[in-house]
């Protein structure tokens, strides 16, 4: 299958990049892969199910703090900490999903935004453990698993690659399954999907939980790989970013979130070297995108060249 080939090709390319990239770009790509996993989870809900969340930072933070606090206070090893982070995100996703899915459209955006703000404030209020805005650092020995130091650049890159590859292939598989097709049907016309006999509420809830769990896995990995846990990651900025990455790369495409994350990172990186008003460049890019490629990069490719792109 062309689709499987393309995505496995990306996975292979990213592995090959480990051996050839200069140190700076090697470090950037490790970070981009973790954030792209976050964006891919976000896209499952936004691009495929048609639910626009403005509060996904709470799931990223749930993973980050689930893992970080687990390491700090329960002395979990990084493997268990990752699982704790994913569990925290999935549970939060279940709770928020049960409540927020009683709404739709703009109300869903506002309710998710509200829950994310509550989560952010909760982290600040629990400053005794979370150290609030200042956050805390995971020390060297806390980040060693099976004798591998996640702080080491090579190990870090490969761990980020493993996480991103797993998420990418999971989502690729999911969207080809009947359950994934139902999510698209819900996005396109929920009432029709319901009257084909699909329990759309249950499907949407599962999508929220899975999307939250993937976001949390990225958050947990971020804490473990880069050694820092801070409340900034629960702020509204980190809810908006995955939306921008996905819009840039192509909502409702499997490969789009990665492309968007990568491009936006280098765009801002380059722009900030030229001007302090670097967000202006990001804004301009989004305006151009809306005008000339409203379906995002991969979305445009699908529309013009490759209708088979999942």
């Amino acid at each position, binding site marked *: 299958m062309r689709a499987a080939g393309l995505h496995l090709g990306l996975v292979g390319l990213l592995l090959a990049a480990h051996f050839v990239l200069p140190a700076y770009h090697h470090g950037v790509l490790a970070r981009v892969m973790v954030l792209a996993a976050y964006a891919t989870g976000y896209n499952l809900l936004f691009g495929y199910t048609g639910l626009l969340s403005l509060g996904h930072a709470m799931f990223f933070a749930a993973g980050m703090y689930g893992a970080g606090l687990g390491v700090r206070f329960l002395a979990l090893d990084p493997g268990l900490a990752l699982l704790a982070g994913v569990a925290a995100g999935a549970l939060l996703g279940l709770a928020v999903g049960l409540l927020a899915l009683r709404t739709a459209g703009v109300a869903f955006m506002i309710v998710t935004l509200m829950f994310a703000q509550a989560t952010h404030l909760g982290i600040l209020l629990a400053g005794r453990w979370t150290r609030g805005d200042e956050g805390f650092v995971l020390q060297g020995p806390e980040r060693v698993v099976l004798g591998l130091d996640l702080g080491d650049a090579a190990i870090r890159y490969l761990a980020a690659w493993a996480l991103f590859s797993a998420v990418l292939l999971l989502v690729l598989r999911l969207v080809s*399954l*009947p359950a994934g*097709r*139902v999510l*698209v*049907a819900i996005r*396109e*016309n929920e*009432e*029709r*999907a*319901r*009257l*084909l*006999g*699909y*329990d*759309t509420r249950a499907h949407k809830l599962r999508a929220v939980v899975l999307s939250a769990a993937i976001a949390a896995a990225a958050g947990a990995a971020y804490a473990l790989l880069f050694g820092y846990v801070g409340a900034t990651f629960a702020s509204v900025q980190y809810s908006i970013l995955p939306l921008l990455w996905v819009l840039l790369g192509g909502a409702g495409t499997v490969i789009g979130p990665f492309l968007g994350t990568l491009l936006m990172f280098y765009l801002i990186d380059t722009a900030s070297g030229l001007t302090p008003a670097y967000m202006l460049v990001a804004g301009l890019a989004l305006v151009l995108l809306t005008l000339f490629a409203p379906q995002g990069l991969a979305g445009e490719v699908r529309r013009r060249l490759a209708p088979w792109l999942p």
Partner: protein
Amino acid sequence: MNAPILSARGLCKSFGGLRAVHEVDLDLVPGEVRALIGPNGAGKTTLVSMLIGRIAPDAGRILLDGADITRLPAHARVRRGMAYSFQITSVFQRLPVEENVALAARRRLGRDRAAVAGEVARVLAEVGLSAEAGRMAGDLSYGHQRLLEIAMGLAQRPRLMILDEPTQGLAEAEVAGFRRLVRAISADCTILLIEHNMDVVMALADRITVLDFGEVLAEGTPEQIRADPAVQAAYLGAA
């Protein structure tokens, strides 16, 4: 007479002060084609919306095969063998025709790709849309979209199909095709048909229920309804 496949007892629904449906009883016998007619605003769509579960009745009960389904959500009623085709065409516009039908078939057939593909081909052939399988549903003509609605109903292999004004907005030739199609479907499926076109109703229906101001005005065979003076006064006018 056979036990009814669907029964409604004392169904009521008001919107604000407007009494849309009032104390309606209805019994559908397996295999029959029942037409539901009445002037605009008589409560036909409200009634079938309650039957399929899109809106909840204020009072009354609905039985499917003798089991009370009044409180079941729409998707659960569909799983029990009911299907609904929308009055205003409601297909997945941005998905291919075959995926529209596959979504309808997959709920029943699951991951069995070969079975789903076979069912999609069979149903598209039955309604005459095989040549359009790969096109986007939104690119089809209006008449073809109506056919796609029917195809999505058929792919579910329902025991009871509710068709809400299937011929609305169709050309004469298309209406004739529809009549043949509905007759073919009725061979193994009970049909509740809301319809304005009296030629279609008289040609297809085994029995007719007339709704007026939300209440059942008359019920009977096409001949009885045609001869009923109350129906003539309320609905058929001078004809």
